[in-house]
């Protein structure tokens, strides 16, 4: 008795179109949601073409390219949605196809889970799906593998199309304040080391989010066992003051969102994971940008930047054409235009979106209008409490959460402004 995947019928059309293309093989990712009771696939995304690929190379599967694509796509999925499998459209022998699929699946899923800052839950579903379509006969072979088990064998699975799959999905969202202050180690303040610090800091912060309370519509459900009684308190007597080479902080707010088919308890988990991954993704993207520009400037005066201020990219949502609330997201840097976002959506997710479709209202870009140094030239910043309560707007229905509060936005800017430093170029 294998798993049964219920698939949005648009996917059938999409895969059909891919079958008609001359290329062979065509690989891609399957996006959806898996739970212990049900498995859903809402979208299929073909692996983008590699620009410089020679004709010969196009006929083979580039595992690295596929996994890198999966990594990028994974960042563009809000909570509740993930890469649940891979597909291949090829005339090749079914057995070979399955072997290729298995390799891709493990590579993809291992890479994606290695980037997670949270520990997998005991009841997380670890089965992922592979789909092999023969372009001539249109025959589909659907199998699942348990990616937790490297020796896992293929198990048969059902693949059923259904329309209006997503119309009744629930959306859970919130806007969350981030306030992290981390020391940089002495003598090692290059971008590379900042990355290490940030990763550690993010892990600790992710743990706080994980162990915090999440209320849905202002209610705490009775099975809430998120708070562990009698937490181990780490009393570090000697480490209270340590020498450091500086500090790095991340402050601001993020909009988090998750989509769920059913099952409220998992809603909190999906939401928390989205909160953690959206912050981690942006920090990662920022670091990648910095490392790239470091390399460009040949890294000769690596630490000449005494103080630096970097705006993390903000999150933009783009609705999927399927009926229902589902959206994917992307991150826009302050120096990018919306056209770059639509380009990325096309390249990475094979989505045709117009700029008007994009929802840019959830987060605002921070504009640096002025700079200030506090007297004494130093800053004082306090991190938030160990435990957190995430509360969704109590007066909003569960299917959408859009609040417009310009006053709040201004207040945040005002306080943030007093903690800025001059940006040395």
């Amino acid at each position, binding site marked *: 008795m294998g798993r049964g995947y219920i698939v949005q019928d648009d996917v059938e059309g999409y895969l059909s179109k891919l079958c008609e293309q001359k290329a062979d093989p065509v690989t891609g990712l399957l996006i959806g949601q898996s739970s212990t009771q049900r498995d859903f696939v809402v979208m299929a995304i073909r692996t983008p073409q590699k620009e410089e690929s020679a004709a010969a190379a196009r006929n083979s599967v580039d595992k690295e390219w596929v996994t890198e694509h999966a990594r990028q796509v994974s960042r563009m999925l809000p909570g509740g949605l993930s890469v649940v499998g891979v597909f291949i459209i090829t005339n090749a022998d079914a057995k070979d196809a399955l072997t290729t699929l298995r390799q891709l699946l493990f590579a993809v899923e291992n890479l994606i889970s290695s980037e997670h800052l949270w520990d997998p839950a005991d009841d997380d579903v670890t089965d992922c799906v592979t789909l092999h379509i023969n372009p001539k006969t249109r025959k589909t072979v659907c199998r699942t593998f348990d990616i937790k088990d490297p020796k896992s064998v293929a198990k048969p699975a059902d693949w059923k199309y259904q329309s209006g799959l997503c119309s009744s999905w629930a959306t859970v969202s*919130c*806007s*969350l*304040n*981030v306030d992290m*202050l981390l020391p*940089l180690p002495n003598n090692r303040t290059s971008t590379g080391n900042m990355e290490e610090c940030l990763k550690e800091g993010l892990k600790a912060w992710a743990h706080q989010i994980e162990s915090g309370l999440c209320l849905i519509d*202002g*209610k705490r*459900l009775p099975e809430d066992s998120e*708070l562990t009684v009698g937490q181990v308190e780490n*009393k570090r*007597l*000697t480490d*209270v*003051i340590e*020498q*450091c*080479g*500086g*500090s*790095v*902080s*991340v402050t*601001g*707010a*993020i*909009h988090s969102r998750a989509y769920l088919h059913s099952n409220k308890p998992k809603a909190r988990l999906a939401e928390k994971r989205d909160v953690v991954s959206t912050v981690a993704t*942006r920090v990662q993207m920022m670091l990648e940008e910095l490392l790239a520009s470091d390399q460009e400037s040949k890294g000769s005066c690596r630490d000449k930047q*005494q*103080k*630096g*201020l*970097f705006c993390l990219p*903000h999150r933009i949502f783009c609705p999927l054409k399927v009926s229902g609330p589902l959206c994917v997201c992307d991150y826009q840097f302050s120096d990018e235009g919306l056209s770059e976002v639509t380009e990325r959506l096309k390249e990475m997710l094979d989505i045709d979106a117009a700029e008007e479709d994009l929802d840019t209202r*959830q*987060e605002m*870009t*921070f504009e640096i209008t002025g700079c200030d140094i506090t007297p*004494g030239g*130093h*800053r*004082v*910043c*306090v991190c*938030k*409490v*160990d*435990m*957190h*309560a995430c509360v969704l*707007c109590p007066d909003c229905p569960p299917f959408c959460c859009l*609040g*417009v*509060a310009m006053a*709040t936005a201004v207040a945040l*800017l005002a306080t*943030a402004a007093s*903690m800025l*430093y001059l940006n040395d170029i």
Partner: protein
Amino acid sequence: MVVVDSETATVLRVKGLLEFRCQLDGTDEQLVRNVISRTFETLRSQVKSESCVLAVSDSPVIIWPNKDAYATPEEITPSTLCEDMHQWIQADEQESSGKKSSKKKSKKSSVASVINLRLMTEVTKPGPLSAPILTKTVLKSHFVSVTLPLDCVVCTGRSDTIKDACEQLIEALTHQLCEMEKVTLQNMKGMTLLVPEPVHFLLPEPKGLVTVVYPVGVPDSQLVAQRKELHQQFELPDDRPYFRRANAYHFPNEPYKDGYLRNPHLALTHPTLDNGKVYLVQGIYSYHHYMQDRVDDNGWGCAYRSLQTICSWFQQQGYVELPVPTHKEIQQALVDVGDKQASFVGSRQWIGSIEVQAVLSHLLGLTSKILFVSQGAELASKGRELANHFLTEGTPVMIGGGVLAHTILGVAWSETTGQIRYLILDPHYTGAEDLQVITDKGWCGWKGPDFWDQTAYYNLCLPQRPKVI
């Protein structure tokens, strides 16, 4: 310090962890103090802000104290009485120290029922808000990172509402942060900082529950001056400790980690004698008996166990920091003072009151009085002496004679009729830490004068309290 009196209907205890983080650009003392004070001020505003949240443990109740006591679920309003919150709390688990008969429960503590709350911060806000900024500062400096363990207690009367409670709780939290700031600054030495931690003490009526902030890691011996001040402030006698860490109040709903029963005698009904009064051990002791700690001392260890009970009393009243000694440690002590040969250690030889006195002196630095009776029948006439002992010293008494050793925890004595009863804690019990069994079967119970072997002689060891604070 927060004081709780006996009019309290419900005690609210809020605990939480606040992260204290700041960067120190220099080592100039004034600069450091300023930054630390400023950071505490930020924490105080956090506690007073709208994002401060109190979550009632073991219940779905969550309160925003600074938003006019808005709470969820909706049935809870700012005018809900505090004591009504009990309905929302899941039934407390039985204490790990064994089953209790519910009738006796109300006698246990002088403090009313406790509701535990957790301090939290709401990090969600209605959107949209500004996307995050990453700020990097390169500057050789010092980074301070401490987790402050907040723990406040507030008393509420019968007519106090949630709103009233919130005001008191926020005030208590802010006050505690002020105390912590004081203690932190007082104990700063150059670039080392000690974590301040709150400790609760139950003072004699009417003073009730009091909270003191001590620096973590500083032993009691270095805090004498602070304790002197506290004794003065609360008008307490200066010859017995009330504010040592070991004196910390143990809340009724917190299980003891070591698994020993505490004060099983409190579950008993005391005898009433004509013109008689009951004189009991003061403070807290643990019940030590045969077969505990995986030591099979059945048949020979009774005096050792009684000695352990006595040691546990001195430890829990804060007179000594030494943990309760094992049989071997007791035997070694006797070898060390020359009372026994080296072969004594590891043996199953009995000890008596004199040995108990020697060990208390050698290991714990305590003096004890020995009382001798040539016949068990004479014990009935020792009512006055025992009553006086429990009045002034209040320590458990070890009695050895015949072939048995016991612990006397109190007497019921009538000055006029001479009637006497002895509250006995029997170390010969071999079962589990089951309060029901122990009290029902009389392993801790009141005995009459015929309990003693009327013809055997007995020695009693009466440990004396050191006169310290």
